């Protein structure tokens, strides 16, 4: 028995350097691992089409608006990504968003509760609702689809009841919720500073990881790949920062959204809990036998999803100018689920990443904003968004099938 492993002759080893990188990339695509390629191509098409049609789509003002609009649905989509990773669905996030806005508005505006406290209570209400969903799903065994469908109806009913006689409650001038839509760090150093922190932080994290791997004598990525990755992130960050500074600066909404994305990404990729989510989504029985408390994972993911929906709802209310009886009842739910899927998180569980919430929401919001700029009626918007969702799901299904034939389920 030799001590050293001879490489398997059937094994395809990536060559070092750029050629090997491209070859590996090609193999992934043909193997059905599309990742975020479709969404990036989609973004380019969207940008080109709308810019040529309107001439203002890529203006700093419009880009800045989009960056604010994506925060609400985007935060909700983060929760949906978590639920989808379990292989489940939460249909109640739209009504939860509306309910949360109603709870905050009634507490803060009608009852004079401290603004920040009202925000916290609205999010806690979301967490409680999610725990209830999780209880029925994980402990009782009712399919999540049915539980959250009941929630979808029930919570919008509660939303109308909470609003009571008030049709709408406008956001007061001094409220923090107003800042979710209106506050910009207008100093240009804010946007550039954040871009620099993000780029350097990413580069530093990559280098730190490679150094640890090197010390543990594990295979490392070539330096060229690290620089390429960090460079792409830096370019995207600084172009965005520059564009935002052309308008009103760095929106608070975007900062909070990015913070949630970073935290959630760290949670699912670097913590035991995140690993457990993937395991339950991949093979719940295997997870159970490995000693993972499957019920607890399921319950807490639904809690998180509803809490994030509640927070997202406040941002959504901020854009709408206030809470109302019908807030969140339109196409918000479908947009949020579509965003998660378009961004590359599978509907079938166990595969996906947090950043699909950002990418998918960007696509959906760009389409909505672009069509608005073109003066399209909302019925056309519904149909186009529906078609985009269908394309995303078709891509997901095909990619899944290709991966199965290529042996990479």
């Amino acid at each position: 028995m030799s001590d050293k492993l001879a490489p398997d002759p059937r094994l395809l080893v990536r060559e070092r350097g750029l050629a090997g990188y491209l070859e590996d990339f090609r193999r992934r695509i043909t193997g059905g691992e599309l990742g975020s390629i479709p969404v990036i191509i989609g973004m380019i098409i969207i940008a080109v089409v709308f810019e040529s049609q309107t001439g203002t789509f890529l203006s700093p003002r419009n880009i800045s608006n989009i960056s604010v609009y994506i925060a609400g649905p985007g935060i909700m989509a983060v929760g949906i990504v978590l639920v989808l990773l379990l292989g489940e669905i939460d249909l109640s996030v739209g009504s939860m968003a509306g309910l949360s806005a109603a709870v905050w508005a009634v507490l803060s505006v009608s009852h004079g509760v401290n603004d920040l406290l009202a925000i916290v209570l609205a999010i806690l209400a979301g967490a409680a609702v999610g725990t209830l969903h999780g209880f029925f799903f994980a402990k009782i065994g009712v399919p999540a689809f049915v539980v959250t469908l009941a929630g979808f109806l029930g919570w919008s009913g509660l939303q109308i009841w909470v609003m009571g006689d008030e049709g709408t409650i406008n956001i007061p001038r001094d409220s923090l919720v107003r800042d979710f839509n209106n506050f910009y760090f207008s100093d240009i150093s804010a946007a550039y500073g954040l871009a620099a922190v993000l780029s350097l932080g990413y580069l530093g994290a990559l280098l730190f990881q490679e150094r640890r791997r090197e010390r543990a004598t594990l295979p490392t990525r070539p330096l060229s790949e690290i620089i390429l990755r960090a460079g792409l992130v830096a370019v995207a960050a600084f172009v965005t920062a520059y564009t935002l500074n052309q308008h009103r600066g760095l929106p608070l909404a975007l900062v909070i959204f990015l913070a949630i994305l970073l935290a959630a990404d760290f949670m699912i990729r670097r913590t035991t809990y995140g690993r457990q989510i993937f395991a339950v989504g991949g093979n719940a029985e295997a997870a159970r036998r490995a000693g993972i408390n499957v019920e607890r994972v399921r319950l807490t993911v639904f809690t998180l999803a509803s809490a994030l929906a509640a927070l997202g709802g406040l941002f959504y209310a901020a854009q709408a100018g206030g809470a109302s009886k019908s807030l969140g009842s339109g196409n918000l739910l479908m947009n949020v689920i579509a965003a998660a899927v378009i961004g590359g998180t599978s509907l079938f569980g166990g595969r996906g990443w947090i950043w699909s919430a950002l990418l998918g929401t960007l696509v959906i919001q760009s389409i909505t904003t672009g069509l608005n700029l073109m003066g399209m009626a909302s019925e056309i918007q519904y149909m186009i968004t529906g078609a985009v969702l269908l394309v995303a799901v078709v891509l997901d299904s095909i990619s899944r099938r290709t991966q199965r034939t290529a042996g990479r389920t």
Partner: protein
Amino acid sequence: MTAAPVLALHGVSKRFGAVQALTDVDLEIRPGRVTALVGDNGAGKSTLIKTIAGVHPIDAGSISWKGREVRISKPHDAQELGIATVYQDLALCDNLDVVANLFLGRELRTAHILDQVAMEREARELLETLSIRIPSVRIPVASLSGGQRQVVAIARALVGSPEVVILDEPTAALGVEQTAQVLDLVERLRDRGLGVVLISHNVADVRAVADDVAVLRLGRNNGVFPAAETSGEEIIAAITGATDNAVTRRSLRRDHQGSEAEPEPEPEQNTDAEGAGEEA
């Protein structure tokens, strides 16, 4: 001849409703030996290993671990003792990579943060000491072949440093080359001093790697044979019950051994048994 049994079952019985699945079964697992557990469908093999693994608590009888009587009432008890079970369906998460599967439920971490580097290093070391060859430890398990998945599942059972490993039909769905790989691995486990329980339908596999062959028939012991001195036909005869008295025959042979040096082919070799042997 060998060390004392690390795990011993005495008079174990298990009943499911109207079915008496196990009656008065004895089994001894010794360190550094492969004990094959064979029997027809419904003979009680799976029930027996599930009692050891803690899935089904026993109704009667006793289980002793290193001479001390223990109760195994849930899977966790078995794991605590150092009994690892690789089920037939492997229980791997296809979407996770090899490292994640090896350490599933036992992740190395500081606080709640995963130590990916340490896990990958230990995974490589483990796979290397077992001479397991897989394309990469960072690819999803779904992209591995059946044999590779099987060895990953077995390697995973070793992460907790168990002393007894139970393998449920590890070669059932594998081709020739992959079966050979798995059997090699079984021998390596034995050479590391583990007690291995191998459940199999394949008499050739059993004879290739097992030291002892324990036969179950209709929920009862039907003899324990030394694999090296027992023909496939004899094992099959005991499995199918072609000879009702395999145990008696064995003691008969032992008497022979006392008088003559060579046990040699049984003079009263049963024709039914040979017929069954060809079938297999």
